[in-house]
């Protein structure tokens, strides 16, 4: 009744090729943006921002990045944690070296640097594929974490080996360090997420995205019809690294404030982001959001139910969380390999016909 395309006429190519061709989708998108930018910042408090919103926004960026690599280009990577660490340390070095430059520039540059590192570690993908490549990216994970742990230049020779985000502001509003107001950190991350999502959506809709998908579906056939595999794979690694680097920089500077590399960017982070992509849906931008929201909310909900309502010890709840996440991954792979995004697509199809099913 509400969700349909009948009567929604396109009179120009521009209208026909817009991001959300169906009116209902478009208005929903505007409404979400309006609520996210115009309503939420006035309602949030410290708890909401730090426990739910910031991790969601930052992981969503990382998941979009990994989804481009895994879901769109078919190159499995287990090095996300290491690449996030590159973003974080690049951001830290830039923040301490150029204190007067805006944080926006630092975070973007950190993303760019990570993109370059990601391309470097993506080079083996030209020779190997599948889980051989997945294991090869583990090399990136372990090597990068070791590098940031052992080479003092990266953590500015601090005694603890940790890096701490100094206080920086954007247009006079503090956004890093302990004195940053909750709404400002939220807005800062939201701007980056919106920017990344729009960029990813348009990249994957266009020529670039189609070459990635051709490589994913069958690389030999893609090569024969004229897709350059070198260019396609390297751009996928670069773009993915750019997004992952941004999320790593935000994770360190805005969310945590102080980071010990092995703990914050270990192999578990790589798996967490990969799970977000699988549960959300491979090859779907919406899926990245859904997966990130799901895996950020799940521990919070389990903690509220297990610890606060039932009064169980926290370690048992933490173990239950492992069991549930593991079981969910398997269930999703068996029942719905395309993830939450597919459920959403099915729901939309149903809505199109509702309330007349024929």
């Amino acid at each position: 009744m509400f969700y349909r395309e009948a009567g929604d006429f396109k009179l120009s190519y521009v209208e026909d090729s817009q991001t959300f061709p169906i009116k209902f989708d478009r208005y929903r998108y505007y409404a979400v943006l309006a609520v996210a930018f115009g309503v939420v910042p006035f309602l949030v408090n410290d708890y909401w921002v730090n426990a739910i919103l910031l991790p969601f926004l930052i992981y969503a960026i990382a998941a979009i990045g990994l989804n481009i690599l895994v879901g769109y280009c078919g190159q499995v990577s287990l090095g996300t944690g290491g690449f996030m660490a590159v973003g974080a340390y690049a951001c830290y070095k830039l923040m301490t070296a150029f204190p007067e430059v805006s944080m926006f520039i630092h975070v973007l540059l950190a993303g760019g640097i990570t993109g370059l590192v990601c391309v470097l570690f993506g080079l083996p993908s030209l020779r190997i594929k599948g889980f051989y490549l997945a294991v090869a990216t583990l090399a990136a994970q372990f090597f990068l974490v070791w590098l940031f742990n052992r080479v003092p230049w990266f953590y500015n020779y601090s005694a603890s080996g940790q890096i701490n985000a100094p206080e920086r502001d954007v247009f006079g509003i503090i956004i890093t360090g302990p004195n940053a107001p909750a709404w400002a950190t939220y807005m800062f991350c939201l701007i980056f997420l919106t920017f990344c999502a729009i960029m990813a959506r348009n990249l994957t809709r266009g020529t670039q995205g189609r070459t990635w998908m051709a490589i994913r579906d069958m690389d030999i056939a893609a090569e024969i019809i004229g897709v350059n595999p070198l260019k396609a794979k390297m751009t996928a690694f670069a773009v993915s690294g750019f997004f992952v680097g941004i999320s790593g920089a935000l994770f360190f500077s805005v969310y945590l404030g102080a980071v010990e590399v092995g703990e914050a960017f270990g192999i578990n982070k790589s798996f967490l982001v990969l799970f977000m992509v699988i549960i959300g849906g491979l090859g779907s931008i919406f899926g990245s959001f859904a997966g990130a929201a799901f895996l950020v909310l799940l521990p919070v909900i389990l903690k509220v139910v297990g610890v606060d309502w039932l009064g169980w010890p926290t370690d048992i709840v933490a173990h239950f969380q492992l069991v549930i996440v593991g079981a969910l991954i398997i269930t999703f792979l068996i029942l719905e390999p395309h993830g939450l995004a597919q459920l959403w697509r099915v729901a939309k199809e149903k809505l199109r016909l509702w309330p007349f099913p024929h």
Partner: protein
Amino acid sequence: MPDQLIFAMEVTLNGLMAGVLYALVALGFVLIYKASGIFNYAQGVMALFAAMTLVGIMQGQVPFSHVINAVFGGHITHFGWTVPSFVAILMTVAVMVLLAWLVQVLVMKHLVGQEPIILFMATIGLAYFLEGVADLMWGSEIKTLDVGLPQGINLWIDETTFGIFGYGFFIDNLDIVATVIAALLVTGLVLFSQYTKQGRAMRAVADDHQAALSVGISLNFIWVLVWSVAGFVALVAGIMWGTKSGVQFSLSLIALKALPVLMLGGFTSIPGAIVGGLIIGVGEKLFEFLIGPMVGGATENWFAYVLALIFLVFRPQGLFGEKIIERV
């Protein structure tokens, strides 16, 4: 003889021993991969699970006692008996067989014919699931495992080498036992797959699923068998590593260490797993000894992966793997 050279020799020997332990874990991977084409990421967690179950049975712990205590109240912890290690090992083998059957019936049966990468991700999910179950069942504190294997410095080697070089080598008795057991295990596996009916069926399945099916081999049975054998190998690896460094979460990380071993040796070759394990074991110990001090140490964390990465660029199928041929 210069001191450095003698130290290097000792490091090499220790590296060989460590390599045997890596190879032991890698074996479990190769078995499942050969028979079903599944890359079983959960192998390390299976080793952890097996070791924890063994400790739990030996000490007569009540399974899930923490959860029961937390949910219903009460203070149950132990049955009050202890089980001799041999009986406990047999019981753990039974548990691993049961686990293999459950994995086959609940998970792998539904994923037949999916892409390898999907199966790989399913085993990552399985790893998380098993880790959580193991912690819920037996508690997550570090446990000591003692099934009566000899431990400590081998005095005979110490004295002999002291007589020759004037410097006693430090070789752990446990490593020697592990080497012997690994050799026995490999021989046993080779004999099993060459000369028994089930072993031949297993190789037939590995060769061609459909052809094996058409001559009347039950795929279901073979896959349960393979997962059971892998569970048994995991138990052996779990006992070795558990005795060496205690039964704890880090045990499951040896699976990650086995990956570069496999890439070096090739995913489909049992000798490859052993040679790869030895190369990685010796390589990382020697690298740490020679280059480590110059770059800040702890290179063992990444050396194996980078070695495998460089190696893969030149020989994607590994040392002994079958050549990867792509048909269109």
